[in-house]
C-alpha cells in the first residue's frame, strides 16, 4: 500500500488540479480493490466445511473498495461538482517535499545509525538548511533534544529504541 503518487509531473507554473489527483487516487484504490478481490478468491471466498472461508469477508471488502473507487473516479472526471481547483501549487509542493524527502533520508539513516544518532543529525541538518541556524546552535539543540528523549524513553519509562548497527557500541557503554 505504498502510494507515493503525488502527480508531481505537472508543469511548473500550473499545479495539479484536485479532481485529477482524485482520479489518480481512485485508479490506485481501484487496483487495490481488484487485487484484494483476486487474492481473496484464491484464499477461498466461498463457503467451506467450517463456515465462511478466509477470503469471504475480504472479498466483499475488496468489492466495496472497487465500487466506491469507480464512483469517485466517475465523479472526479465527469461529475457536476468536480473540484477543478488547485491541489497544490509548485511553491507548496516544494515546501512539502522539503519535509518529506529529508524524512525519507532520515528513516534510511535510522536503519544504519540507530534512532538517536540519526535523529540528532536529522534535527541539526534540518535546522541549518531549512531554518538557517548557525551550526553550533543547531547541534546543541539537537543534542539536548535527543538527550531528553533518551532520558524519557530509556531511563524513565524503560523502552529501548532502535540502535541500528551501533548496537555493539551500546553494549560497550553498558558493559563498563
Amino acid at each position: 500500500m505504498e502510494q507515493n503518487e503525488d502527480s508531481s509531473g505537472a508543469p511548473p507554473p500550473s499545479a495539479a488540479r484536485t479532481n485529477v489527483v482524485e482520479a489518480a487516487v481512485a485508479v490506485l484504490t481501484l487496483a487495490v480493490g481488484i487485487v484484494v478481490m483476486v487474492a481473496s478468491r484464491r484464499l477461498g471466498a466461498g463457503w467451506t466445511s467450517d463456515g465462511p472461508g478466509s477470503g469471504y469477508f475480504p472479498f466483499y471488502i475488496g468489492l466495496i473498495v472497487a465500487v466506491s473507487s469507480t464512483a469517485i473516479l466517475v465523479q472526479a472526471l465527469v461529475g457536476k461538482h468536480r473540484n477543478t481547483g488547485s491541489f497544490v501549487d509548485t511553491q507548496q509542493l516544494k515546501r512539502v517535499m522539503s519535509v518529506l524527502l529529508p524524512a525519507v533520508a532520515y528513516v534510511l539513516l535510522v536503519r544504519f545509525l540507530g534512532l538517536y544518532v540519526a535523529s540528532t543529525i536529522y534535527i541539526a541538518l534540518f535546522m541549518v538548511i531549512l531554518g538557517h541556524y548557525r551550526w553550533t546552535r543547531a547541534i546543541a539543540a539537537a543534542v539536548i533534544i535527543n538527550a531528553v528523549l533518551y532520558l524519557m524513553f530509556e531511563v524513565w519509562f524503560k523502552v529501548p529504541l532502535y540502535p541500528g548497527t551501533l548496537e555493539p557500541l551500546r553494549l560497550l557503554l553498558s558493559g563498563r
Partner: protein
Amino acid sequence: MNELGALVHGFSVILTPMNLGLMVVGIVLGVLIGVLPGLGGANGVAILLPLTFSMSPTSAIIMLSCIYWGALFGGAITSVLFNIPGEPWSVATTFDGHPMAQKGQAGAALTTAFTSSFVGAFLAVVMITFLAPMVARFALKFGAPEFFSVYLLTFCSFVGMGKGSPFKTLLSMALGFALAAVGMDTVTGQLRLTFGQVELMRGFDFLVAVIGLFGIGEILLSMEEGLKFSGHAAKLDPRVVLQTWKQLPAYWATSLRSAAIGIWMGITPGGATPASFMSYGVAKKMSKNGQRFGTGEMEGVVAPETAAHAAGTSALLPMLALGIPGSPTAAVLLGGLLIWGLQPGPLLFVEQKDFVWGLIASMYLGNIVGLLVVLSTVPLFAAILRIPFSIIAPVIIVICAIGAYTVHNAMLDIWFMLGFGVIGYVFKKIDIPLAPMVLAIVLGDKAEDSFRQAMLSSQGDLAIMWANPLVGSITTLAFVMLFWPLLVRGIAWLKGSRKAAELPSEQPGH
C-alpha cells in the same frame, strides 16, 4: 446507588501519589500535544502508548486518558492566541476566541474555553457513570449477530452522517477493513493478503497507521503554508479568571444544550469536530446576540468548547461498554486495553471493576487537575508556540518515528508510517475522511469474527440479522443511517413537490 458505591471504590483505587503524579504528567504532555501542530489526540496517545507498557493497566489508562484531556484543553490555546486550531475540534473556537484575543480579552477567552471544556467533560462523565454500566449490562445479552449489527450501525452512520461524498467515506472504511485483513486469519490461521512477504504476517498495526495518517500527514499539510506563528502573548491573571467565572453562569442554557449535542455526537461516532460546529451553529441561531457571533462573543466560545469536550469524553462510553470506539482517540485507547491484556466490552464491567471504575473516577479527577494545570501554565505553552517551525517540524517527525518503532520494535513500521503519512496528506486534501479508516483497521478483525460466527450459527443465512427484534431493529437502523442522505433528499423532494421547495438546505436534525 450501585454506581455511586462503585465510583467511590474507583476513587480509592486511583488516589495514590503515583497515579496523581501520572495525571499531572499526562495533562502536561497532552496540552503540549494539543498545542503543537501535527500532534493531536489520536496520534499523541498512540505515540505515548508504548511508554505505558511497563505500568499497571490502571495507571496506564489514567495517564493516557489524561493525555487525551490535555489535548482537548490544549487545542483551545492555539485557537484563541494564534487563530490556528491545534486540533480540528477547536476550529469553531477560533471564530469568536481569536477576535476576543484581538480585543485584548485573551485571558477571558482562554478562561471561558477551559471552563466550558471542563463543564462539557464533567457532564459527559456524569452521563458515563450512570449510563455505561446500564449499556454494558444490556450488552451482556448480545450474541455474535447483535455485535455485528452494532458494528454495522457504527460504520453505516459514518457513511450516512458524513459530510461530502458518501463514496469517499465508504472507500476510506473499506480500505481500513482491507488493511485489517492483512496477516494471519484469526479463525483459520491462513495467511491473507501478505503476497509472500514474511514481514506482513503481523499485519498493519493501527497505531502505526494513526501516527502516519494524522501525525506525518498533518505536518505535511502545515508545511504547505510555510507555517509562521504570530500570536498574542498570554498571561492569566487570577482576577480575570474570577471575573470570567462570574459571567459564565449567564450562559447556562447554551452550556447545557452544547453538552447535550456533544454527548450525543460522541456516543454515535460523529465525533468532537462536527459536534463543535453544530453546537456553534445552534447557539448562533438560538442566542439573542446571534448576529454578534464571530466578533468576539463569549457565548461563541462556550458553545463549541463545551460540545467538543463533551463529545470527546462521551466517545469513551461505547468504547468501554461495547468495545466499539466512538472516535479515533478512543480507538487508540481501545488498542491500549488490548495490549494490556484487557478485553474491552460488556464483560469489562464484570471482570475488571477496579480498572473500569478507576478510569471513570480518573475522568472526574483528571478534568479538575486539567483545568487547574491549564489555567496556571498558559504562558508556558504560549511560549512553546513561539519556537520556530524549523525546530518543531523535525522534532515531531522524530517523535512520530520513535512512536511507530516502539509499537512492535520493528524498523519496517517506520516506513509504513511514512507511507501512511503521504496517504493521510493526499486523502485529507481530496476530502477522504481518515477516521473511518482508522476505526475499520481497529475493528476489522472483530467485526469479521462476529460476522463469521453469526453466519456459522445460521448456516450462511443473512436472515439472522433480522432474527429477533433487538438485532433486527439495530440492523434496520444501520440501513436507515446508511441511506440517510437519500432519505432526507427523498423527503425534501416529496415536500418540495407539494409546496414548491421551501426548505433548500435543511440539515438533518440528528
